[in-house]
Protein backbone atom coordinates (compact mmCIF):
# COMPACT_ATOMS: atom_id res chain seq x y z
CA UNK A 1 0.00 0.00 0.00
CA UNK A 2 1.41 3.38 -0.93
CA UNK A 3 1.65 6.28 1.53
CA UNK A 4 -0.50 8.72 -0.43
CA UNK A 5 -3.81 6.83 -0.33
CA UNK A 6 -3.25 6.23 3.39
CA UNK A 7 -2.73 9.97 3.96
CA UNK A 8 -5.83 10.70 1.92
CA UNK A 9 -7.80 8.24 4.04
CA UNK A 10 -6.78 9.93 7.30
CA UNK A 11 -7.16 13.49 6.05
CA UNK A 12 -9.16 15.80 8.34
CA UNK A 13 -12.27 16.99 6.47
CA UNK A 14 -13.63 20.47 7.07
CA UNK A 15 -17.21 19.22 7.31
CA UNK A 16 -16.19 16.81 10.10
CA UNK A 17 -14.49 19.63 12.03
CA UNK A 18 -17.58 21.84 11.62
CA UNK A 19 -19.80 18.99 12.80
CA UNK A 20 -17.86 18.62 16.06
CA UNK A 21 -17.75 22.42 16.58
CA UNK A 22 -21.54 22.49 16.31
CA UNK A 23 -21.82 19.60 18.78
CA UNK A 24 -19.51 21.51 21.16
CA UNK A 25 -21.56 24.73 20.76
CA UNK A 26 -24.86 22.90 21.34
CA UNK A 27 -23.45 21.09 24.39
CA UNK A 28 -22.28 24.36 25.92
CA UNK A 29 -25.68 25.97 25.28
CA UNK A 30 -27.40 22.97 26.86
CA UNK A 31 -25.11 22.96 29.95
CA UNK A 32 -25.33 26.74 30.21
CA UNK A 33 -22.25 27.01 32.42
CA UNK A 34 -18.94 28.51 31.24
CA UNK A 35 -17.07 26.76 34.06
CA UNK A 36 -18.21 23.31 32.91
CA UNK A 37 -18.01 23.83 29.17
CA UNK A 38 -17.27 27.11 27.47
CA UNK A 39 -18.58 27.65 23.95
CA UNK A 40 -16.13 27.59 20.98
CA UNK A 41 -17.11 31.18 20.12
CA UNK A 42 -16.02 32.39 23.57
CA UNK A 43 -12.77 30.40 23.31
CA UNK A 44 -11.94 32.05 19.98
CA UNK A 45 -12.77 35.49 21.47
CA UNK A 46 -10.55 34.82 24.47
CA UNK A 47 -7.76 33.54 22.24
CA UNK A 48 -7.85 36.68 20.10
CA UNK A 49 -7.65 38.81 23.27
CA UNK A 50 -4.65 36.81 24.48
CA UNK A 51 -2.92 37.12 21.12
CA UNK A 52 -2.96 40.88 21.44
CA UNK A 53 -0.70 40.72 24.50
CA UNK A 54 3.10 40.46 24.59
CA UNK A 55 2.90 37.98 27.48
CA UNK A 56 1.08 35.52 25.22
CA UNK A 57 3.86 35.48 22.63
CA UNK A 58 6.54 35.35 25.34
CA UNK A 59 4.87 32.27 26.83
CA UNK A 60 4.59 30.62 23.40
CA UNK A 61 8.27 31.33 22.65
CA UNK A 62 9.35 30.11 26.10
CA UNK A 63 7.59 26.76 25.73
CA UNK A 64 8.33 26.33 22.03
CA UNK A 65 12.07 26.94 22.43
CA UNK A 66 12.37 24.45 25.27
CA UNK A 67 10.30 21.69 23.72
CA UNK A 68 12.07 22.19 20.38
CA UNK A 69 15.48 22.00 22.10
CA UNK A 70 14.54 18.76 23.85
CA UNK A 71 13.21 17.34 20.59
CA UNK A 72 16.27 18.17 18.47
CA UNK A 73 18.69 16.97 21.14
CA UNK A 74 16.78 13.68 21.32
CA UNK A 75 16.77 13.31 17.53
CA UNK A 76 20.54 13.83 17.39
CA UNK A 77 21.15 11.44 20.30
CA UNK A 78 18.65 8.84 19.03
CA UNK A 79 20.08 8.71 15.51
CA UNK A 80 23.68 8.57 16.77
CA UNK A 81 22.95 5.86 19.33
CA UNK A 82 20.97 3.82 16.78
CA UNK A 83 23.86 4.02 14.30
CA UNK A 84 26.36 2.97 16.98
CA UNK A 85 24.06 0.19 18.25
CA UNK A 86 23.64 -1.23 14.77
CA UNK A 87 27.42 -1.69 14.57
CA UNK A 88 28.11 -2.79 18.14
CA UNK A 89 25.78 -5.40 19.60
CA UNK A 90 27.14 -4.73 23.10
CA UNK A 91 26.08 -1.08 22.90
CA UNK A 92 22.62 -2.18 21.79
CA UNK A 93 22.43 -4.65 24.70
CA UNK A 94 23.63 -1.95 27.08
CA UNK A 95 21.04 0.57 25.89
CA UNK A 96 18.08 -1.85 25.74
CA UNK A 97 17.20 -1.69 29.50
CA UNK A 98 17.68 2.10 29.56
CA UNK A 99 15.37 2.65 26.58
CA UNK A 100 12.80 0.23 27.99
CA UNK A 101 12.89 2.04 31.34
CA UNK A 102 12.47 5.46 29.71
CA UNK A 103 9.56 4.14 27.66
CA UNK A 104 7.82 2.41 30.56
CA UNK A 105 8.28 4.84 33.47
CA UNK A 106 5.30 7.25 33.67
CA UNK A 107 6.14 10.77 32.54
CA UNK A 108 4.83 12.16 35.88
CA UNK A 109 7.52 10.19 37.74
CA UNK A 110 10.23 11.71 35.56
CA UNK A 111 8.79 15.19 36.07
CA UNK A 112 8.72 14.89 39.86
CA UNK A 113 12.20 13.36 39.96
CA UNK A 114 13.55 16.08 37.67
CA UNK A 115 11.97 18.74 39.90
CA UNK A 116 13.87 17.31 42.88
CA UNK A 117 17.14 17.40 40.96
CA UNK A 118 16.86 20.60 38.88
CA UNK A 119 14.98 23.87 38.67
CA UNK A 120 11.68 23.91 36.80
CA UNK A 121 12.86 26.46 34.24
CA UNK A 122 14.35 23.93 31.81
CA UNK A 123 12.27 20.96 32.90
CA UNK A 124 10.41 20.70 29.59
CA UNK A 125 13.72 20.28 27.70
CA UNK A 126 14.57 17.18 29.73
CA UNK A 127 11.06 15.73 29.60
CA UNK A 128 10.68 16.34 25.88
CA UNK A 129 14.13 14.77 25.36
CA UNK A 130 13.23 11.68 27.38
CA UNK A 131 9.93 11.17 25.55
CA UNK A 132 11.45 11.53 22.08
CA UNK A 133 14.73 9.63 22.54
CA UNK A 134 13.39 6.04 22.72
CA UNK A 135 10.97 6.62 19.85
CA UNK A 136 13.68 7.90 17.50
CA UNK A 137 16.26 5.36 18.68
CA UNK A 138 13.95 2.34 18.29
CA UNK A 139 12.62 3.40 14.89
CA UNK A 140 15.97 4.31 13.36
CA UNK A 141 17.48 1.07 14.67
CA UNK A 142 14.59 -0.89 13.11
CA UNK A 143 15.16 1.03 9.89
CA UNK A 144 18.86 0.16 9.85
CA UNK A 145 18.06 -3.49 10.57
CA UNK A 146 15.52 -3.62 7.75
CA UNK A 147 18.00 -2.45 5.12
CA UNK A 148 18.13 -4.93 2.24
CA UNK A 149 21.08 -7.29 2.91
CA UNK A 150 21.28 -8.20 -0.77
CA UNK A 151 21.88 -4.56 -1.71
CA UNK A 152 24.58 -4.30 0.96
CA UNK A 153 26.25 -7.39 -0.47
CA UNK A 154 26.06 -5.83 -3.93
CA UNK A 155 27.70 -2.66 -2.55
CA UNK A 156 30.43 -4.76 -0.92
CA UNK A 157 31.20 -6.68 -4.12
CA UNK A 158 31.32 -3.51 -6.23
CA UNK A 159 33.26 -1.66 -3.49
CA UNK A 160 30.87 1.27 -3.49
CA UNK A 161 32.23 3.97 -1.12
CA UNK A 162 30.57 4.20 2.32
CA UNK A 163 29.10 7.65 1.73
CA UNK A 164 27.29 6.46 -1.39
CA UNK A 165 26.09 3.32 0.39
CA UNK A 166 24.60 5.49 3.14
CA UNK A 167 22.98 7.85 0.64
CA UNK A 168 21.61 5.36 -1.87
CA UNK A 169 20.99 2.21 0.17
CA UNK A 170 20.60 3.15 3.84
CA UNK A 171 18.86 6.53 3.67
CA UNK A 172 15.99 5.59 1.31
CA UNK A 173 15.16 2.62 3.53
CA UNK A 174 15.60 4.37 6.89
CA UNK A 175 13.82 7.63 6.03
CA UNK A 176 10.24 6.25 6.21
CA UNK A 177 11.00 4.92 9.71
CA UNK A 178 12.59 8.23 10.70
CA UNK A 179 9.75 10.35 9.36
CA UNK A 180 7.01 8.35 11.06
CA UNK A 181 9.03 8.34 14.32
CA UNK A 182 9.45 12.13 14.12
CA UNK A 183 5.76 12.58 13.39
CA UNK A 184 4.79 10.56 16.50
CA UNK A 185 7.57 12.04 18.67
CA UNK A 186 6.67 15.65 17.82
CA UNK A 187 3.17 15.24 19.24
CA UNK A 188 4.52 13.35 22.26
CA UNK A 189 7.12 16.01 23.00
CA UNK A 190 4.40 18.68 23.19
CA UNK A 191 2.10 16.60 25.36
CA UNK A 192 4.86 15.66 27.78
CA UNK A 193 6.49 19.11 27.69
CA UNK A 194 3.21 20.86 28.49
CA UNK A 195 2.48 18.37 31.29
CA UNK A 196 5.93 19.04 32.74
CA UNK A 197 5.26 22.77 32.71
CA UNK A 198 1.86 22.37 34.37
CA UNK A 199 3.47 20.40 37.20
CA UNK A 200 6.72 22.40 37.42
CA UNK A 201 5.07 25.80 36.75
CA UNK A 202 8.13 27.55 35.29
CA UNK A 203 7.54 31.30 35.23
CA UNK A 204 6.38 32.68 31.88
CA UNK A 205 5.47 29.32 30.29
CA UNK A 206 2.26 28.05 28.71
CA UNK A 207 2.14 25.47 31.52
CA UNK A 208 2.04 28.24 34.10
CA UNK A 209 -0.92 29.84 32.28
CA UNK A 210 -2.73 26.51 32.17
CA UNK A 211 -2.15 26.02 35.90
CA UNK A 212 -3.50 29.51 36.62
CA UNK A 213 -6.58 28.74 34.54
CA UNK A 214 -7.13 25.60 36.60
CA UNK A 215 -6.71 27.42 39.94
CA UNK A 216 -9.13 30.21 38.99
CA UNK A 217 -11.54 27.85 37.19
CA UNK A 218 -11.02 30.01 34.12
CA UNK A 219 -12.31 27.56 31.51
CA UNK A 220 -12.10 29.98 28.53
CA UNK A 221 -8.39 30.47 29.29
CA UNK A 222 -7.89 26.74 29.75
CA UNK A 223 -9.44 25.99 26.35
CA UNK A 224 -7.64 28.91 24.68
CA UNK A 225 -4.21 27.79 25.93
CA UNK A 226 -5.00 24.19 25.01
CA UNK A 227 -5.79 25.37 21.49
CA UNK A 228 -2.48 27.21 21.46
CA UNK A 229 -0.62 24.02 22.39
CA UNK A 230 -2.41 22.03 19.66
CA UNK A 231 -1.74 24.74 17.06
CA UNK A 232 1.91 25.17 18.10
CA UNK A 233 2.40 21.41 18.05
CA UNK A 234 0.93 21.08 14.54
CA UNK A 235 2.89 24.09 13.29
CA UNK A 236 6.12 22.72 14.78
CA UNK A 237 5.48 19.28 13.26
CA UNK A 238 4.88 20.69 9.76
CA UNK A 239 7.92 22.97 9.92
CA UNK A 240 10.25 20.26 11.25
CA UNK A 241 9.14 17.64 8.72
CA UNK A 242 9.42 20.17 5.89
CA UNK A 243 12.96 21.18 6.85
CA UNK A 244 14.00 17.58 7.39
CA UNK A 245 12.97 16.71 3.84
CA UNK A 246 14.92 19.76 2.59
CA UNK A 247 18.03 18.71 4.51
CA UNK A 248 17.84 15.20 3.06
CA UNK A 249 17.47 16.66 -0.45
CA UNK A 250 20.45 18.93 0.14
CA UNK A 251 22.58 16.02 1.41
CA UNK A 252 21.62 13.98 -1.64
CA UNK A 253 22.57 16.82 -3.95
CA UNK A 254 25.91 17.20 -2.15
CA UNK A 255 26.62 13.48 -2.49
CA UNK A 256 25.76 13.59 -6.21
CA UNK A 257 27.93 16.67 -6.65
CA UNK A 258 30.92 14.95 -5.12
CA UNK A 259 30.46 11.94 -7.35
CA UNK A 260 30.15 13.95 -10.55
Amino acid at each position, binding site marked *: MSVEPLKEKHKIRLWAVLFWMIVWQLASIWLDSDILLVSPVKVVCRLSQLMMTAAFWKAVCFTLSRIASGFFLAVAAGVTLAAVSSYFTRVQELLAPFMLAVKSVPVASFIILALIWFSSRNLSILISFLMVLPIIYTSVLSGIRSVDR*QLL*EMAYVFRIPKLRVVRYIYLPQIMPFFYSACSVALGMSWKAGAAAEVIGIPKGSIGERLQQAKVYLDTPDLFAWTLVIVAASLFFEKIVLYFMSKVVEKCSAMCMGKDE
Partner: protein
Amino acid sequence: MNNICVKHLSKSFDGKMVFDNLNMSISGREMTCIMAPSGAGKTTLLRILMGLESADCGSVSGLENKRFSAVFQEERLCEGMTAQDNIRLVMPTLGNQAVIREMARLGLGDCYNQPVSELSGGMRRRVSILRALLAEYDVLFLDEPFKGIDDTLKEQVIAYVKEKTRGKTVVFVTHDRKEAFDMGAGIIELL
Protein backbone atom coordinates in the same frame (compact mmCIF):
# COMPACT_ATOMS: atom_id res chain seq x y z
CA MET B 1 45.82 -12.03 -14.08
CA ASN B 2 46.84 -15.34 -12.47
CA ASN B 3 44.62 -18.38 -12.22
CA ILE B 4 42.12 -18.69 -9.39
CA CYS B 5 42.97 -21.79 -7.37
CA VAL B 6 40.43 -23.49 -5.17
CA LYS B 7 41.93 -26.11 -2.84
CA HIS B 8 40.17 -28.61 -0.58
CA LEU B 9 37.17 -26.31 -0.19
CA SER B 10 34.26 -27.54 1.94
CA LYS B 11 31.05 -25.85 2.91
CA SER B 12 27.99 -27.00 4.82
CA PHE B 13 24.88 -25.28 6.11
CA ASP B 14 23.33 -26.57 9.36
CA GLY B 15 25.24 -29.83 9.06
CA LYS B 16 24.15 -30.37 5.45
CA MET B 17 27.17 -30.62 3.18
CA VAL B 18 26.99 -28.42 0.07
CA PHE B 19 30.36 -29.51 -1.30
CA ASP B 20 33.31 -31.31 0.18
CA ASN B 21 37.03 -31.18 -0.69
CA LEU B 22 36.46 -29.14 -3.86
CA ASN B 23 39.52 -28.48 -6.00
CA MET B 24 39.65 -26.49 -9.22
CA SER B 25 41.72 -24.01 -11.17
CA ILE B 26 40.00 -21.18 -13.02
CA SER B 27 42.05 -19.65 -15.82
CA GLY B 28 42.76 -15.93 -15.78
CA ARG B 29 41.75 -13.71 -18.74
CA GLU B 30 39.25 -16.31 -19.90
CA MET B 31 35.64 -17.14 -19.43
CA THR B 32 35.06 -20.25 -17.33
CA CYS B 33 31.66 -21.79 -16.88
CA ILE B 34 30.94 -23.78 -13.74
CA MET B 35 28.16 -26.21 -14.53
CA ALA B 36 26.14 -28.30 -12.15
CA PRO B 37 22.54 -29.26 -11.50
CA SER B 38 20.46 -27.08 -9.14
CA GLY B 39 21.43 -27.36 -5.49
CA ALA B 40 24.99 -28.51 -6.21
CA GLY B 41 26.49 -25.40 -4.61
CA LYS B 42 27.31 -23.22 -7.63
CA THR B 43 26.00 -20.03 -6.05
CA THR B 44 27.63 -20.89 -2.70
CA LEU B 45 30.97 -21.34 -4.47
CA LEU B 46 30.54 -17.99 -6.21
CA ARG B 47 29.67 -16.32 -2.89
CA ILE B 48 32.83 -17.75 -1.32
CA LEU B 49 34.91 -16.49 -4.25
CA MET B 50 33.34 -13.01 -3.91
CA GLY B 51 34.06 -12.98 -0.17
CA LEU B 52 30.38 -12.98 0.83
CA GLU B 53 30.58 -16.37 2.51
CA SER B 54 33.37 -18.12 4.38
CA ALA B 55 34.27 -21.74 3.71
CA ASP B 56 34.35 -24.35 6.47
CA CYS B 57 37.83 -25.36 5.35
CA GLY B 58 40.10 -25.10 2.33
CA SER B 59 41.52 -22.08 0.56
CA VAL B 60 41.06 -19.79 -2.43
CA SER B 61 44.03 -18.00 -3.97
CA GLY B 62 44.45 -15.62 -6.89
CA LEU B 63 41.72 -13.18 -5.86
CA GLU B 64 43.75 -11.07 -3.44
CA ASN B 65 43.37 -7.31 -4.00
CA LYS B 66 41.23 -7.88 -7.09
CA ARG B 67 38.25 -5.73 -8.03
CA PHE B 68 35.04 -7.68 -8.53
CA SER B 69 31.91 -7.17 -10.54
CA ALA B 70 28.88 -9.43 -10.53
CA VAL B 71 25.50 -10.33 -11.87
CA PHE B 72 23.72 -11.95 -8.96
CA GLN B 73 20.88 -14.45 -9.14
CA GLU B 74 18.59 -11.58 -8.13
CA GLU B 75 18.85 -8.19 -9.85
CA ARG B 76 19.78 -6.32 -6.65
CA LEU B 77 18.85 -2.89 -8.02
CA CYS B 78 17.96 0.19 -5.97
CA GLU B 79 14.23 0.35 -6.63
CA GLY B 80 13.71 4.09 -6.28
CA MET B 81 16.49 4.93 -8.71
CA THR B 82 16.46 5.03 -12.50
CA ALA B 83 18.19 2.38 -14.58
CA GLN B 84 20.88 4.91 -15.47
CA ASP B 85 21.49 5.88 -11.83
CA ASN B 86 21.74 2.23 -10.82
CA ILE B 87 24.54 1.79 -13.33
CA ARG B 88 26.23 5.03 -12.30
CA LEU B 89 26.04 4.00 -8.65
CA VAL B 90 28.84 1.49 -9.26
CA MET B 91 30.56 3.53 -11.97
CA PRO B 92 30.11 7.24 -11.17
CA THR B 93 32.85 8.38 -13.54
CA LEU B 94 30.91 7.10 -16.54
CA GLY B 95 29.19 9.93 -18.44
CA ASN B 96 25.44 9.99 -19.01
CA GLN B 97 25.79 9.73 -22.78
CA ALA B 98 28.03 6.67 -22.51
CA VAL B 99 25.52 4.93 -20.24
CA ILE B 100 22.60 5.78 -22.53
CA ARG B 101 24.54 4.53 -25.56
CA GLU B 102 25.33 1.20 -23.88
CA MET B 103 21.75 0.85 -22.65
CA ALA B 104 20.48 1.32 -26.18
CA ARG B 105 22.65 -1.57 -27.34
CA LEU B 106 20.76 -3.87 -24.97
CA GLY B 107 17.34 -2.54 -26.01
CA LEU B 108 17.02 -0.27 -22.97
CA GLY B 109 17.30 3.00 -24.88
CA ASP B 110 13.80 4.22 -24.03
CA CYS B 111 13.91 3.53 -20.32
CA TYR B 112 17.19 4.99 -19.07
CA ASN B 113 15.33 7.59 -17.02
CA GLN B 114 12.63 5.25 -15.71
CA PRO B 115 12.72 3.96 -12.12
CA VAL B 116 13.76 0.31 -12.21
CA SER B 117 10.66 -0.59 -10.19
CA GLU B 118 8.64 0.18 -13.34
CA LEU B 119 10.68 -2.09 -15.62
CA SER B 120 9.79 -5.65 -16.62
CA GLY B 121 11.74 -8.62 -15.23
CA GLY B 122 13.74 -9.03 -18.44
CA MET B 123 14.61 -5.33 -18.57
CA ARG B 124 15.73 -5.33 -14.94
CA ARG B 125 17.94 -8.31 -15.71
CA ARG B 126 19.56 -6.47 -18.60
CA VAL B 127 20.16 -3.42 -16.38
CA SER B 128 21.93 -5.61 -13.83
CA ILE B 129 24.05 -7.20 -16.59
CA LEU B 130 24.96 -3.77 -17.93
CA ARG B 131 25.84 -2.53 -14.45
CA ALA B 132 28.25 -5.45 -14.01
CA LEU B 133 29.83 -5.03 -17.43
CA LEU B 134 30.33 -1.27 -17.19
CA ALA B 135 31.94 -1.41 -13.74
CA GLU B 136 35.73 -1.51 -13.41
CA TYR B 137 36.78 -5.03 -12.48
CA ASP B 138 39.49 -7.67 -12.58
CA VAL B 139 37.12 -10.61 -12.12
CA LEU B 140 33.50 -10.78 -13.24
CA PHE B 141 31.11 -13.25 -11.62
CA LEU B 142 27.95 -14.19 -13.47
CA ASP B 143 25.35 -16.23 -11.58
CA GLU B 144 22.68 -17.48 -14.01
CA PRO B 145 22.88 -14.11 -15.79
CA PHE B 146 20.34 -14.80 -18.55
CA LYS B 147 17.54 -15.96 -16.27
CA GLY B 148 14.30 -14.21 -17.25
CA ILE B 149 15.55 -12.88 -20.58
CA ASP B 150 13.41 -14.12 -23.45
CA ASP B 151 14.99 -16.20 -26.18
CA THR B 152 14.72 -13.54 -28.90
CA LEU B 153 16.87 -11.14 -26.85
CA LYS B 154 19.16 -13.71 -25.27
CA GLU B 155 21.33 -14.03 -28.40
CA GLN B 156 21.83 -10.25 -28.53
CA VAL B 157 22.70 -10.08 -24.82
CA ILE B 158 25.11 -13.04 -25.06
CA ALA B 159 26.89 -11.40 -28.00
CA TYR B 160 27.17 -8.16 -26.02
CA VAL B 161 28.54 -9.94 -22.93
CA LYS B 162 31.09 -11.83 -25.04
CA GLU B 163 32.24 -8.61 -26.70
CA LYS B 164 32.60 -6.73 -23.41
CA THR B 165 34.39 -9.53 -21.55
CA ARG B 166 36.91 -10.51 -24.18
CA GLY B 167 40.30 -11.12 -22.54
CA LYS B 168 38.92 -10.73 -19.02
CA THR B 169 38.55 -13.19 -16.19
CA VAL B 170 34.93 -14.27 -16.02
CA VAL B 171 33.44 -16.94 -13.77
CA PHE B 172 30.07 -17.91 -15.13
CA VAL B 173 27.61 -20.22 -13.41
CA THR B 174 24.71 -21.93 -15.14
CA HIS B 175 22.90 -25.23 -15.41
CA ASP B 176 22.06 -24.61 -19.09
CA ARG B 177 24.61 -26.32 -21.34
CA LYS B 178 23.49 -24.34 -24.39
CA GLU B 179 24.18 -21.03 -22.62
CA ALA B 180 27.68 -22.23 -21.73
CA PHE B 181 28.27 -23.31 -25.34
CA ASP B 182 26.93 -20.00 -26.76
CA MET B 183 29.17 -18.03 -24.42
CA GLY B 184 32.15 -20.04 -25.65
CA ALA B 185 33.33 -20.68 -22.11
CA GLY B 186 35.62 -23.39 -20.81
CA ILE B 187 33.49 -25.74 -18.73
CA ILE B 188 34.15 -27.10 -15.25
CA GLU B 189 31.58 -29.62 -14.05
CA LEU B 190 30.78 -29.36 -10.35
CA LEU B 191 29.77 -32.85 -9.27
